[in-house]
């Protein structure tokens, strides 16, 4: 964790802001977002500090490292360095390389360790000690939900990183939190028609599901969407998150009558369960007169590399892929690839976009006040960031955009060339009403400026 010096001027400024907020009737604060006081960690005139909270240790450290690379690239571009990246392709042209609202962008980093309590502690430290005005990052839904809750309480904006659970913008949604990444429902909605087309309807699916929040919502989503295209769910078995050998869970699949295995696993779980399933010859098996198939609904290129040859031909979904040919994607891949020597992951892409989206929202709102930023992001429609036309829906702070269905590539040309895009599912097919049952029970509440 890096630290910023606590200055006498900073303390006085924050105290003054706090006092002013207490003294001001709330009827006046609602519309006066341009006022540079009355909210948490109001930046000085020269710089503003963003907090990048990513897994630097633990099982998702490689994803965290890629997120950090993207954040550094975004900061460089916002401050006018490098080739400017997607600043030139972003449909909103408020970002001109002069920082955010004319302030140079600085950043501090924290280590989530992919643990909710550690992630909250590092976010809290960045907010309280380093004066971070916005927290972003993460590679796990449990961490995203935990940090989002903290940011809501603290009164800063949270721009989620890689989080795929429906709950992040469902039952755990918060007014100060925003998600660019897609979710489990969207994976199911995009994937099911492709699966039915590729493998036929009337299939019998057996789910192995990581036994935690994300796994449950993904299982629910994939079951609902595949059953809607005529598949039957034979069984859904929960596996411990700490499991490393899935042979005991895969053995019953062989005699279950199922002809498709759906692996609701991510990270090391996915690598091991897929490897074990292939070892047990599932892909060579014929059941009910059909070839046995395996599906991995959420793919990560970084993780897919760990499964090696086993991913070949296996269908799944992803938020973004470096092989996309739109101007935004090509520009981002060129910027990232030139700087680091390899293409960015979907985690890198989503956090880069989140940083730009936050910066642009501040510019458009004319203030760093979280409530002004919320207002600017709600209902915001944009393009040029690699996913086509996108909407940040006001009802739940979820981005709606096209979803990619991908397949493990049969003949990769390099270690990065693991997946190929099979279909770009249009946003109309993956959108859902804000009160959809899978997202029920949540309430955004009202934005919290922190004081």
């Amino acid at each position, binding site marked *: 964790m890096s630290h910023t010096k606590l200055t006498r001027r900073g303390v006085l400024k924050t105290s003054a802001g706090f006092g002013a907020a207490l003294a001001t009737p709330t009827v006046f604060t609602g519309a006066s977002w341009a006022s540079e006081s009355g909210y948490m960690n109001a930046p000085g005139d020269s710089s503003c500090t963003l907090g990048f909270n990513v897994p630097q240790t633990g099982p998702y*450290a*490689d994803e965290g490292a890629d997120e950090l690379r993207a954040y550094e690239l975004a900061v460089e571009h916002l401050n006018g360095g490098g080739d400017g990246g997607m600043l030139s392709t972003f449909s909103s042209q408020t970002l001109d390389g002069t920082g955010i609202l004319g302030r140079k962008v600085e950043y501090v980093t924290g280590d989530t360790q992919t643990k909710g309590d550690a992630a909250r502690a590092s976010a809290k430290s960045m907010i309280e000690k380093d004066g971070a005005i916005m927290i972003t990052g993460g590679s796990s839904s449990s961490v995203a939900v935990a940090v989002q809750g903290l940011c809501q309480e603290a009164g800063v904006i949270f721009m989620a990183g890689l989080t795929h659970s429906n709950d992040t913008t469902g039952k755990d949604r918060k007014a100060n939190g925003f998600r660019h990444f897609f979710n489990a429902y969207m994976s199911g909605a995009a994937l099911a028609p492709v699966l039915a087309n590729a493998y036929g309807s009337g299939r019998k699916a057996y789910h192995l599901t990581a036994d935690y929040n994300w796994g449950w919502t993904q299982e629910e989503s994939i079951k609902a969407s595949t059953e809607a295209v005529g598949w039957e769910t034979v069984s859904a078995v929960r596996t411990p998150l700490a499991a490393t050998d899935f*042979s005991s869970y895969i*053995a019953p699949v062989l005699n279950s009558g199922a002809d498709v295995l759906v692996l609701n696993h991510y990270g090391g779980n996915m690598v091991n369960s897929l*490897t074990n399933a292939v070892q047990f010859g599932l892909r060579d098996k014929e059941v009910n007169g059909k070839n046995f198939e395996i599906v991995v609904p959420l793919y990560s290129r970084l993780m897919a590399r*760990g*499964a090696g040859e086993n991913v070949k031909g296996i269908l799944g979904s992803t938020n973004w892929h470096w092989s996309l040919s739109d101007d935004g994607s090509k520009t981002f891949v060129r910027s990232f690839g030139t700087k680091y020597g390899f293409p960015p992951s979907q985690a890198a892409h989503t956090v880069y976009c989140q940083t730009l989206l936050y910066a642009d929202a501040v510019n458009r709102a004319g203030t760093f006040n979280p409530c002004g930023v919320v207002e600017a992001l709600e209902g915001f429609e944009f393009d040029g960031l690699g996913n086509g036309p996108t909407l940040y829906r006001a009802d739940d702070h979820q981005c709606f955009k096209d979803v990619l269905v991908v397949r493990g590539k049969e003949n990769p040309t390099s270690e990065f060339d693991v997946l190929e895009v099979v279909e770009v599912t249009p946003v109309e097919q993956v959108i859902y009403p804000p009160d959809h049952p899978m997202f029920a029970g949540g309430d955004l509440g009202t934005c919290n400026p922190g004081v």
Partner: protein
Amino acid sequence: MDAVILQVLNGLDKGSAYALIALGLTLIFGTLGVVNFAHGALFMIGAFCAVTLQRILTFSYSVIDETQKDFLGNPLKVETPYVVSWFGEATGNSIIDWSVPLAILFSIPVMIAVGFTMERGLIKHFYKRPHADQILVTFGLAIVLQEIVKAYYGANPIPTPAPDALTGSFDFGVLIGFGENAIIYPIWRLVYFFFALAIIFMVFAFLRFTTFGMVVRAGMADRETVGLLGINIDRRFTIMFAVAACVAGVAGVMYTPINSPNYHMGMDFLVLSFVVVVVGGMGSLPGAVLAGFLLGVLEAFASMNEIKAIVPGIDQIIIYLVAIAILLTRPRGLMGRRGVMEE
């Protein structure tokens, strides 16, 4: 019935890993009296010996191919391993294909060096210290070792496949009279099981039928008396530490095709292996092996849907429940000796 046999097979291969790690732990505890929490890290280092050899064998030179483009649109650098260049495509690719079995040979000197350095450099200073100190220092060492591996190899699992000839599965059911496709089992897991049996047999034979082994066994029974006979038992125990490190290392090498290795894999096995040692009986080599296979099979059965339907979550706690039951009824474990850790 076929499901039961399949779970027995699953348990045996899982138990093989437990048994090999527990065997090494018991060797170290029985000889040096040290509770070595870094033993899982030795298993992990063994696995990364396989990764390292794979990288050495695939070390390549690149040739620019103007007809192909990389992700930035530049001419593609086509990598050709030196091994393929030196030995021809067929032989070179075969050498790379068999990198995991070859890594056994590679890992033995590496593990001897690691074991010797670990024992002489750190652990010998803790022989006279309480077990709590030994646990703390070896656990700290394990964390240091895994962080070093992570810094160099990254946090994600690294695919390390078995040779093509031993990849895939075979119909075990047909061999024992069941119908086709009733019991399908991966070839490499069977290889791992027999490999584990061979290593266990060699360790027991070494201790039972060699003079060196006889002295070590005598030292395990009464270190002081053996020392009074003028035998340098400390030196032999140091060698036994290196042998235990080798057992953990080769177990790790052969495990890599079953699950892609990552820096944390040692910790995943460590706690369970300690339970295995305690259930088998502290200091008992046959007990460690027996308990390893027993708990592996029980864990596999507890994962069956039929069992979990009756007792949800049993697969996550079965080993600990059995450990409690055995320690309540046989406080020294299944084959524990009187006096071990009882002073």
